[in-house]
């Protein structure tokens, strides 16, 4: 018998239905970064702040001892400062939520990955392929969001958690893990929520802008610009809370800290929430008017 | 080689590529190509990667040849003089999408040193002539593929170039428009324009051009009219279909002819012959036609069109 496997359709699996159909798109979106050398290099670069903290941890717990004489002692002595005490949540949040290095690396990652993705698809007419398969624009954006967020979260959420677990293992007993577990769980939730919001805004800009370059610039301007405005106005007017309402970055970090239960002074939590949600809603609405089924076929 | 320019006494070819080669580093894209275009339409055919696009870029001066010289209407290719009198219809999709068709063409005309008003008038006239009259004030963003193609053609022809290079000019046009554009291209040599045109639709190209140049692996494999090229391929026997009453007796008669290499029965009353030694065969066939009972109803050469020639040479 001569087999023609093009015609033979044996052993076909059941048709996948519903949202599970779209899942591979999110997965592909996530994996894209790791398939090119540049992407992996970028990812490793973004791990640097976390690595810095790791070295600090190792020194504090005496696993390694290098650097100038007395470095360890100095670090241990500084443990009263909230940001440098491994038994407190701040220690793990700091590399992610600080302006330097947190924001810089976050900006690098998102502007090169998330901000380009939809604009790049548009240049390649990829929507024409996606949407003619029954994938709706909403599902498309949701998948891109999920995929992009997974990339972002693998830095912003996973790094603090990994650091915390490492610290738990390095510490003398399990009390470090036990006492900070609740705070860390809340911090993780906060990071998830906020990084999802940031990614969403970035993604919406990608859908609004005509080219990947424009999306990159718009996102950089929004994040850095709002940050600059917030810092300047807050310091000029001596109204520190303004910073959390005007700067997109600061608003996010304030929300993260609030959810994690870290005490903060001079911030406006409702203002920060309003800033984040407002930006997200406005950009998403604009994006919705740009992503239409009609785009698929002229 | 036939050319109207050569016979009209004008010394110049409009495009004159003299033994050009092009190297990208150690990679050879074109080798020793000589190509001349007078006031005529010359078709450029070849498989992708044969060097067609390199040759085109060289002809309009976007690239410089590694060896050899190219002159456009007497000016070295790439010089301002050459650029002033050549027009290119590239095969890229993109235009300035935010502009209207008439603005785009007028903008491009501006660089030829015409006044603003003249640019606009000429742009509108060219677009109208190409059948975009009613839509030329709409932004290009809203254009269909065929309309974009007309804009590309308009910017190539609006400054009345002496040498027009049309890369796949029919892309995206509907059959009606293809016909109109084909007629227009055919008329260009009358206005003193030399046209080099490429197309992958060989059946269509054949009706468009005076002669063709076939590129293969960076070299000119053949050039001339389709019939000329076909005649120079004696190794490939012609296939001719003959329809007549009583095909069996006809076959019995034809096998004895020295020029007939083989006879095959097609469906119904049709024979397919393999033939060498062309003129003799057709003279004999004409003679046969005067006396065959019931008459010969069909004589169709099956492989003397451009597509078959292309297939034989490059397939």
């Amino acid at each position, binding site marked *: 018998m001569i087999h023609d496997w093009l015609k033979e359709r044996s052993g076909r699996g059941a048709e996948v239905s519903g949202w599970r159909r779209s899942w591979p798109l999110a997965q592909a979106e996530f994996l894209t970064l790791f398939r090119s050398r540049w992407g992996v290099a970028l990812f490793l670069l973004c791990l640097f702040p976390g690595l810095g903290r790791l070295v600090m941890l190792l020194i504090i717990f005496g696993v390694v001892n290098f650097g100038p004489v007395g470095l360890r002692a100095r670090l241990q002595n500084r443990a009263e400062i909230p940001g440098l005490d491994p038994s407190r949540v701040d220690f793990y949040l700091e590399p992610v939520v600080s302006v330097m290095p947190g924001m810089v690396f976050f900006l690098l990652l998102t502007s090169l990955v998330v901000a380009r993705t939809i604009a790049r698809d548009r240049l390649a007419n990829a929507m024409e392929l996606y949407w003619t398969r029954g994938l709706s624009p909403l599902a498309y954006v949701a998948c891109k969001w999920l995929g992009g967020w997974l990339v972002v979260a693998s830095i912003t959420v996973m790094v603090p958690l990994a650091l915390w677990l490492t610290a738990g293992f390095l510490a003398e007993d399990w009390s470090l893990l036990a006492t900070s577990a609740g705070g860390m769980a809340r911090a993780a939730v906060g990071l998830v929520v906020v990084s999802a919001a940031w990614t969403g805004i970035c993604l919406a800009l990608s859908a609004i802008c005509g080219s990947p370059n424009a999306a990159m610039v718009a996102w*950089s301007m929004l994040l850095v610009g709002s940050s600059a405005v917030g810092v300047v*106005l807050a310091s000029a007017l001596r*109204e520190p809370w303004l910073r959390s309402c005007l700067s997109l970055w600061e608003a996010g970090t304030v929300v993260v800290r609030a959810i994690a239960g870290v005490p903060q002074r001079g911030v406006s939590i409702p203002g920060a929430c309003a800033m984040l949600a407002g930006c997200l809603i406005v950009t998403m609405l604009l994006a919705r008017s740009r992503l239409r089924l009609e785009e698929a076929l002229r | 080689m036939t050319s109207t320019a050569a016979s009209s006494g004008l010394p110049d070819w409009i495009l004159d590529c003299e033994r050009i080669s092009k190297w990208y580093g150690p990679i050879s894209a074109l080798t020793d190509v000589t190509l001349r275009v007078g006031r005529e339409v010359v078709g450029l055919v070849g498989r992708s990667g044969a060097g067609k696009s390199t040759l085109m*870029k060289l002809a309009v001066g976007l690239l410089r040849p590694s060896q050899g010289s190219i002159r456009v209407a007497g000016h070295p290719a790439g010089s301002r003089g050459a650029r*002033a009198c*050549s027009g290119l219809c590239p095969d890229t999709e993109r*235009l300035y999408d*935010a502009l209207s068709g008439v603005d785009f063409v007028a903008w*491009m005309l501006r660089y030829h040193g015409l006044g603003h008003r003249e640019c606009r008038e000429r742009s509108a006239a060219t677009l109208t002539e190409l059948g975009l009259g009613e839509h030329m004030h709409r932004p290009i963003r809203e254009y269909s593929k065929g309309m974009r193609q007309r804009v590309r053609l308009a910017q190539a022809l609006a400054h009345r170039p002496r040498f027009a290079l049309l890369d796949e000019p029919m892309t995206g046009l509907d059959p009606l428009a293809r016909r109109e554009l084909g007629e227009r291209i055919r008329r260009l040599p009358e206005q003193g324009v030399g046209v080099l045109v490429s197309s992958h639709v060989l059946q269509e190209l054949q009706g468009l051009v005076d002669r063709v140049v076939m590129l293969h692996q960076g070299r000119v494999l053949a050039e001339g009219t389709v019939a000329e090229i076909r005649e120079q391929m004696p190794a490939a026997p012609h296939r001719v279909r003959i329809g007549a009453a009583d095909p069996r007796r006809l076959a019995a008669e034809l096998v004895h002819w020295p020029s007939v290499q083989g006879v095959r029965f097609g469906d119904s009353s049709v024979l397919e012959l393999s033939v060498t030694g062309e003129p003799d065969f057709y003279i004999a066939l004409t003679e046969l036609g005067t006396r065959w009972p019931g008459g010969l109803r069909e004589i169709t050469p099956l492989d003397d069109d451009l597509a078959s020639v292309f297939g034989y040479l490059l397939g």
Partner: protein
Amino acid sequence: MTTKPQGLGSLATIVESARQTWNLSRRDRLWWFVAAILVLVPALAFVLAGRAEDGLGGRGLFCLMAWWLHGTVIVPWLTLYLGVQAVHGRIEDRTFQYLFLRPVRKVALLAGNWIAVASMAGGTGVLGMGLLFGAVALRGDLWPDGIEWGLAGAFAVVAGAAAAAYAAVAVLFGAFFRRPLVWAAFFVVGVQMLAANLPVSAGLRRLTITDPLRRLLLDGIEPDRRLAQMLWPAERDFRPELIEHPLRDLLLLGGLCLVAAGMAYARTEYDSRERE
């Protein structure tokens, strides 16, 4: 042969190229975004200015916002983006084929691009600073010693100089690099931020745009120590004699960039680059 016009003269080409680039760039969707920022920020400053209670005053408020917002965010990014789009955008989408076949000098086309980008971005910067100044000036209570109109002038000069210099850099990157915007980001975030942390006399500072701008501004507004500290937190010591010739430095940098860009752009072979 009929006498045909041999193409547009170089000067007219520069004007025409600038006009076309201007015309194309103004349709970019990014302008809506920029316009929103230009309007929202002064409005914000106006509404909130009443809360400024200490000695900062209108002068400090305006200087801080103008420098931090326009000087370090809007003007650099907008200029780099516009310049990259004007030069590299046309190479990337292969529309350069329409242009390069025209009987004009390519360098003139490039010069036109530069003029258009510099004027657009400079104009936006000046407009933005003007709006901001207007908003702050409307709060009379912030200006106990009267409104200092000179400040607006100094910042307008800075905006213009910054746009011209950044446009030259953008044009160079656009003509030379395959991914110019990434290099531009590297220049702004990497080189300039790094240089800002170096000692005031470091040579690398000469290769940046922010440093001459800083000196230009120091010269123009003569801030007190506190304001200078707020504008340039990394500068510990500032002395008037370190100002030297900021405009000359900018001119040198911009000129070098433009010459290099012209050379890269005028290469006889400008084969289409692959789309990224």
